[in-house]
């Protein structure tokens, strides 16, 4: 059995070495794949705060992913058409600057998470799963028929947005930027987990009545976790949109919410690096199996099934021999 700490460092090291190898071997697509894994991992790290620590099984996190994506799409669209966004008296100039887009994505998805959380946290268990799904579906159908920003066709951005001091058009530089953001999010997760808030949140998942009797409100703890979680997933949405230079309603789809959960479970629920390992494996499987057979989704299904049935605690669970938290 291997200590979790070692696994974490090895995985991070892998994310540094592999793209560097790809750079020298002139395999730019490998870098693109790695970037995709990093961004999906970031989305799942966000979800993991709500799901893994707080026990909130949200089947609607695609809402935040999509909002982040559209924050990027809409701002960059207005910048590339030189037509400011007019909201009544408020006129907003479009921008191609990543930091501004990121802040917009964070704030928008945090606000959405606050509202959705306030309404959804009245419910628990399956009802919570389903009400978050319902919010996801609302955003999905709205975005499909919202013709101002392309509806189902989505929005194409012709050139990737800028980050001061970097040439984001270079795959390796954009990858590095995404990896840095992921590391920051992992830092947040790890600090949060051991902080007084994390302790209380973790207890609120396991024994909410205990948390109440020490004078804390479990619902408010979960709400804050949901907001932080939504904001991080929103940020990943903005990066994902920049990776593809494209946003569309599929970012709001319930399958995407499902995939984020899948990533976390593959890696290990509630583990710091669970989502990262899950995302890496998922992207690798998608790429390798997809190359082997048209019916690769069958095999993906079989692999997922085996993980649920025989590998409680995901990959990290297998490697460390310790089952993860019970959600």
């Amino acid at each position, binding site marked *: 059995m291997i200590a979790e700490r070692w696994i974490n460092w090895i995985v991070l090291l892998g994310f540094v070495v592999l793209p560097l190898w790809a750079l020298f071997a002139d395999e730019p697509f490998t870098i693109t794949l790695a970037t995709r894994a990093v961004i999906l991992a970031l989305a799942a790290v966000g979800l993991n705060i709500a799901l893994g620590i707080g026990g909130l099984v949200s089947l609607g996190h695609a809402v935040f992913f999509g909002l982040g994506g559209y924050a990027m799409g809409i701002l960059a669209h207005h910048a590339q058409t030189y037509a400011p966004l007019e909201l009544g008296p408020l006129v907003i100039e479009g921008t191609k600057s990543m930091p501004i887009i990121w802040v917009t994505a964070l704030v928008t998805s945090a606000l959405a998470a606050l509202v959705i959380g306030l*309404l959804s946290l009245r419910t628990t*268990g399956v009802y919570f799963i389903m009400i978050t799904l*319902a919010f996801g579906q609302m955003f999905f*159908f709205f975005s499909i028929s919202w013709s101002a920003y392309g509806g189902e066709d989505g929005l194409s951005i012709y050139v990737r947005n800028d980050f001061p001091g970097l040439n984001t058009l270079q795959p390796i530089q954009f990858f590095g930027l995404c990896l840095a953001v992921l590391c920051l999010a992992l830092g947040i997760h790890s600090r949060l987990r051991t902080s007084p808030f994390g302790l209380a949140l973790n207890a609120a998942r396991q024994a909410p009545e205990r948390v109440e009797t020490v004078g804390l409100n479990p619902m408010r703890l979960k709400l804050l976790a949901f907001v932080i979680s939504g904001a991080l997933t929103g940020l990943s949405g903005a990066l994902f949109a920049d990776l593809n230079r494209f946003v569309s309603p599929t970012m709001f789809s*319930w399958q995407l919410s499902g995939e984020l959960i899948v990533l976390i*479970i593959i890696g290990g629920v509630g583990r710091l690096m669970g989502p990262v390992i899950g995302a890496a494996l998922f992207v690798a499987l998608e790429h390798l199996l997809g190359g082997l057979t048209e019916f690769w989704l069958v095999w993906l299904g079989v692999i997922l*099934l085996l993980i*649920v049935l025989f590998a409680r605690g995901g990959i990290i669970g297998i490697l460390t021999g310790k089952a993860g938290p019970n959600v």
Partner: protein
Amino acid sequence: MSTILILEQVLNGLQFGIMLFLMAAGLTLIFGVMGLINLAHGSLYMVGAFAAAAVAGATGSFLLALAAALAAAAVAGAIIEIVVIRRLYRAAHLDQVLATFALILIFSEGTRWVFGSFPLFLDVPSYLSGPVTLPGGIQYPLYRLALIAVGLAVAVFLWWLTARTRIGIQIRAGENDREMIAALGVDISRLYTLVFALGAALAGLAGALVGAIQSVQVGMGEPVLILAFVVIVIGGIGSIKGAFIGAVLVGLTDTLGGIFLPELFKLFMEPGAATQTGSALASMAVYILMSLVLIWRPTGLFGARA
């Protein structure tokens, strides 16, 4: 808009609701008895439709096709219960979601593997095709009336099964307390397989019945699965009565919303924009309904209070 048209649309809403009920009944039964979230229920619906299309194509008999749908879905249900689901009863909801999500992938692509990528043909039998004239002069397809009748019959059957039979007593006991039915000397795992197969058969029946007027294709189960979940959540998970009322509510909301919301917006917007806005809102309507119900009653209309 004439009264007759409005009445006809209400009938359409009811009919759509009853179709949803066929799907939701099995889902809520399985959740109520075994506490299992079965995302693969839509796949069983698809299995029923494909089995019916295959048998109808080979024999030309719609009744045989229905029987095949029931049997195929029940068998598929029993198999996945024994092979996979059985290991998940004590697992967290999260594991159930993932495992049954995996089953969707396997069923959908497996079906495409076997039947190919093109939709199959399944038609309304000649003795049920065409419209009939209802009192008030409404022309209504006979087949849709038959669907309503089957749906009501299934509702009565389920009521009878749970309220009046030995199995029903066991099922209700199982909802409350697993140890208790063990104490009653019931073989729990057999009961569970049976209930799961019954729920699957209902989904298969729904798939075959609906497949005759819709498209029998891979992935047909997913949209209706989501709606069925909306239905049982509104009704209160585990409650057959809740599923019925939830289904009718969702059916009416979806149908009438699609018609009246665009008309409503035409009152104060120009027609083209009103149609689009109204339709957009209509597609969100059932989800808005569900969130409102849950905000008002966090365990649905007839769900057990926490």
